[in-house]
């Protein structure tokens, strides 16, 4: 009678199950995962605050974009938070190619290219010099090196205003005042403390035995730098690059002090366009120009993400 056997087997299977249920019932009370309400008071407070804060931070960016896409009549009528009824890219075109600073009406494009011509060499030169400096300080300490380094770091805290005029004189003496080269030198000088510190700390953090091994292998100052240290240090070079590109691009003071108007970087030109007293204020063009100027560092920021945070933390905490 196979059916009965099967039935018995099933019954046998059921029996202990019932016991298990009973055993479970005797162990009453909380069991398993602790229930959590997604909408607990704490969560509402934390996320609510964060969302409000995030909106506050995003608001100016939103307004900038909206304003830049409206025509002037719509700006005069409506409110700044409203999205444009009619999207126009004309302000962007005008900001880029025909906005006026004084008598000059070729837009921000000139400032953009000036900034490129300033930022690229300044970043490369300052990083090259500072990384070699940091390497010498970390691995090839010589007498007096620490003294110079201390002066350099203390110097990072001196307000630029104190050192500007002597630099003007020095640059004038060597015939570079007002030129792009002069500004590149200035950026290299003022980037040096933080970058040197960054590289020194990074190289000092690499295992010293690696350096010793390379010396036993007969490698000298430059061989160790180029063949051992450089290939190992790409992350810190990227961090330095982010730091320098955003810092130099965003500079205003050095640009206005050390260059002639035809070499003004984008920030200076932007300020001149927006704050010029002549003519009717074109807020949409102003905002388009502002976004254009902020675009490069913002791009760097969004692309680099975590490294940017690391860069400013390294720069800020240690500096």
């Amino acid at each position, binding site marked *: 009678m196979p059916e009965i056997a099967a039935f018995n087997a099933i019954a046998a299977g059921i029996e202990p199950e019932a016991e298990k249920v009973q055993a479970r019932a005797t162990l009453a009370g909380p069991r398993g995962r602790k229930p959590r309400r997604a909408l607990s008071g704490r969560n509402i407070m934390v996320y609510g605050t964060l969302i409000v804060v995030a909106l506050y931070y995003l608001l100016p960016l939103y307004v900038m974009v909206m304003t830049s896409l409206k025509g002037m009549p719509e700006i005069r009528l409506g409110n700044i938070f409203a999205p444009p009824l009619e999207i126009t890219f004309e302000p962007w075109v005008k900001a880029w190619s025909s906005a006026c600073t004084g008598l000059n009406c070729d837009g921000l494009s000139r400032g953009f290219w000036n900034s490129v011509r300033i930022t690229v060499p300044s970043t490369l030169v300052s990083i090259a010099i500072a990384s070699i400096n940091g390497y010498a300080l970390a691995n090839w300490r010589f007498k007096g090196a620490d003294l110079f380094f201390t002066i350099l770091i203390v110097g990072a805290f001196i307000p630029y205003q104190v050192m500007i005029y002597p630099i003007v004189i020095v640059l004038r003496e060597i015939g570079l005042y007002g030129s792009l080269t002069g500004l590149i030198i200035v950026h290299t000088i003022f980037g040096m403390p933080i970058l040197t510190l960054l590289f020194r700390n990074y190289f000092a953090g690499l295992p010293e035995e690696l350096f010793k*091994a390379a*010396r*036993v292998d007969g490698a000298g100052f430059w061989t160790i730098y180029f*063949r051992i240290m450089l290939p*190992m240090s790409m992350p810190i070079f990227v961090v330095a690059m982010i730091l320098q590109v955003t810092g130099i691009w965003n500079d205003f003071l050095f640009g206005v002090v050390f260059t002639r108007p035809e070499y003004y970087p984008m920030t200076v030109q932007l300020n001149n366009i927006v704050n010029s007293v002549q003519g009717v204020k074109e807020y949409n063009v102003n905002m388009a120009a502002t976004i254009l100027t902020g675009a490069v560092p913002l791009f760097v920021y969004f692309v680099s993400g975590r490294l940017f945070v690391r860069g400013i933390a390294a720069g800020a905490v240690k500096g």
Partner: protein
Amino acid sequence: MENVSVSVKDLSLSFGAVTVLDTLNLDIKDGEFLVLLGSSGCGKSTLLNCIAGLLDVSDGQIFIKNKNVTWEEPKDRGIGMVFQSYALYPQMSVEKNLSFGLQVAKVEKTEIDRRITRAAEILQIQPLLKRKPAELSGGQRQRVAIGRALVRDVDVFLFDEPLSNLDAKLRSELRVEIKRLHQSLKNTMIYVTHDQIEALTLADRIAVMKSGVIQQLADPMTIYNAPENLFVAGFIGSPSMNFFRGELQLRDGRAFVHANGVDFDVSAYPSRGPFKAGQKVVLGVRPEHVRVDEALDGQPSHQAVVDIEEPMGADNLLWLKLAGQSMSVRIAGQRRYKPGTAVKLSFDMAVASIFDAASENRL
């Protein structure tokens, strides 16, 4: 003088006011395996770095192969070095790691290949040549690091705690390999470690160091059995030698160390000079030189009580109280004692050590 490989003469090194090495002298024979042993901060690694030329000495001279290399660059000293952290160049493949130094020295390509092939063969790292250090295990990395010293084709190998970063099992495996390497290459090797097992197993001679001074320089058995002073006696051996502080007494033509009210008969001790009655001394007996409930010829026995038992498999370690003082005894693994058991101890004084309490030197 002919077969001296490395010679250190009156070497001193100080950083500012801190003296790390003080007029240190050391001669290492050709083909010798010398271990510098000491706890951290004793100056052993500093000495090795001086020999390598990685640290400038304050005073004194260093000779390698009878050539004064005191002011030479590391690369010109004819040394190869292996580091604790391996110090492999992370961005280079194993092969590049091995060839880097030779390329810098502008060695011919065919010669480089020949040496790498040979080193890879000796160390059995042929399959790893194309890999990056990050893709290797700790043991493999250390093998490559040794290979980097090997391809330099030098007379002297310097090892700076090469096995300290490895786990216990790998450490004992590589220890055997280093010994085998030394037996086949017959190079001079100077090996820094804080691990006494490594020192005892590898060394032809051990230099035990403390505070920048060599305490004893001798072969491992002498270091273990006849330590020159109290520091060496206490440093070598695990568990440590049992020490009894007391006074020498001479009675009836026999010599005793009277400590904690117990008279230890030390007549069998091979003393270097005659004993002076009343001298304050320290008697040292290794745990394995004490017999438990086993009479030793001509030795009186002492009453003791078992405190704790630590069975270790092959051995059994007993911690006992003898006249109020704690001491350890090593017995065979199968002999077990319960705590509180009273036992009889007898000491093998022929292999004991006695030190002057004041100078701490061996009598």
